């Protein structure tokens, strides 16, 4: 009975984190963008610093009518937001936040699990793009699928480098093997992983699939109300997951000055938050790339860098162990 209760508690905690953290990132994005670009809108609602903007957004989304276009494929159209959102919830369950047992559910092959399940989220966008019966949506879906060709491989290779360094594919095992000099050692891999992750999340500068000035909002053009909000939530949950993963794989997770015991989870959250701030910063400061520019970047820069990182990891690993 105790086991069941334990599992239930963990899942509840992960679920609460899944509901809260993406909203925190979303609210932060409003405010950071408002400050950086001198936007007045997000600073208005509710008075002080526009604190109620998020509430207003929520009310707006909940009020809007849930429209399914007449020519759309109803079931696929309605299913797509769930397919886009749920994988991130599953991934969040396995990300360790603190030493010992502070994880929703430890998975033996954690690195493979998170990369595999995160990859499934793309299906949601592709399904939405096809089922909407809208040319802009179709273009968005096509761009989403094309983008996959660019980011999937460098992301896997960069993650493989860390797994080689730690000698394990378990996420908590990787953090336990972490030493501070891993940061410079795996720096190239970290940059490749994070860049490829941005492309997976379709965040600027890689937001061609939703490019609002070219194809309205890509695969999500026909969505309204709560289903549209679910897609947005998936984007912010993706930011949380990507930053959390980069923290776990490359920045030592709960390790930090002052020891891992007690305050370890705080270090994880802090590193994740700093990375998330970086993601937002990139959105306000970088122009959008074209789809072919992303392919070129991935195949001529990211993949060679990732391969070089793997070679470096292998060499250092052999030198250390001999």
């Amino acid at each position: 009975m105790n086991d069941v209760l334990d599992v239930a508690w963990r899942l509840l905690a992960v679920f609460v984190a899944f509901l809260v953290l993406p909203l925190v990132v979303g609210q932060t994005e409003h405010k950071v963008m408002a400050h950086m670009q001198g936007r007045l809108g997000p600073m208005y609602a509710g008075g002080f610093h526009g604190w109620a903007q998020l509430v207003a957004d929520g009310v707006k989304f909940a009020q809007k009518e849930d429209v399914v276009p007449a020519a759309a494929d109803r079931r696929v159209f309605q299913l797509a937001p769930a397919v886009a959102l749920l994988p991130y919830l599953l991934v969040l369950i396995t990300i360790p936040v603190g030493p010992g047992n502070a994880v929703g559910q430890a998975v033996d092959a954690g690195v493979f699990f998170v990369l595999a399940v995160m990859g499934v989220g793309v299906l949601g966008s592709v399904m939405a793009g096809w089922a909407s019966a809208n040319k802009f949506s179709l273009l968005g879906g096509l761009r989403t699928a094309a983008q996959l060709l660019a980011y999937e491989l460098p992301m896997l290779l960069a993650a493989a480098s860390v797994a080689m360094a730690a000698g394990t594919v378990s996420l908590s095992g990787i953090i336990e093997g972490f030493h501070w000099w891993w940061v410079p050692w795996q720096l190239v891999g970290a940059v490749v992983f994070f860049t490829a992750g941005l492309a997976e999340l379709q965040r600027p500068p890689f937001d061609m699939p939703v490019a609002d000035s070219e194809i309205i909002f890509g695969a999500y053009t026909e969505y309204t109300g709560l289903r549209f909000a679910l897609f947005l939530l998936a984007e912010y949950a993706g930011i949380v997951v990507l930053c959390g993963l980069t923290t776990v794989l490359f920045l030592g997770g709960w390790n930090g000055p002052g020891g891992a015991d007690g305050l370890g989870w705080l270090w994880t959250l802090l590193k994740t938050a700093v990375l998330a701030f970086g993601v937002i910063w990139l959105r306000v400061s970088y122009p959008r790339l074209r789809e072919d520019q992303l392919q070129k970047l991935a195949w001529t820069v990211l993949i060679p860098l990732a391969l070089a990182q793997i070679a470096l990891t292998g060499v250092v690993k052999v030198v250390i162990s001999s």
Partner: protein
Amino acid sequence: MILAAGHPGFLSPTGVEIAFVLVGLVTFGAALVTVATRQLVHAALWLVVTLGGLAVEYLLLTAEFIAWVQVLIYLGSVVVLLLFGLMLTKAPIGRSPDADSGNRPVALAAALVAAALLVWVVVDAFRSTWIDLSTVQGSTDVAGRSLFQHWVLPFEALSVLLLAALVGAIVLSRRNGRPAGKETR
């Protein structure tokens, strides 16, 4: 894989075995719909269910690593590429009248023969071996060891084969009418 001394019977199945059969039935059903549906994109989406069901079967057999790789490669990449191709070729919403090539009886016969062959081979190879699932049989450690100790030669041969296929695909795709190097910019 061990040969259990006292043979576990078929009449008192454990929870895992029941789940295995149920998931197997769902997977089989999804596979049937995949080949039978007239809607092209729906076929691809049912393929997702089929491949996902296979991943669950691997999980139930404690082969965690294989299960995640199945999800990573097939669900995350192959099916997305398939959908990409379908979207490029204007797959309509609703039924595709030309989705059926009229080869149903032949395809059915081929499928039955292939299935019979596979079942016969597997049954003949494993007859009365019983996998004890109470200990993990397919962890990353075990899979890695057997792959890179016992099966390293086939593994490398396969990678050479895949490389050859890759180079062949590139060569074929570059030769569309005009000589390489003179392509339009």
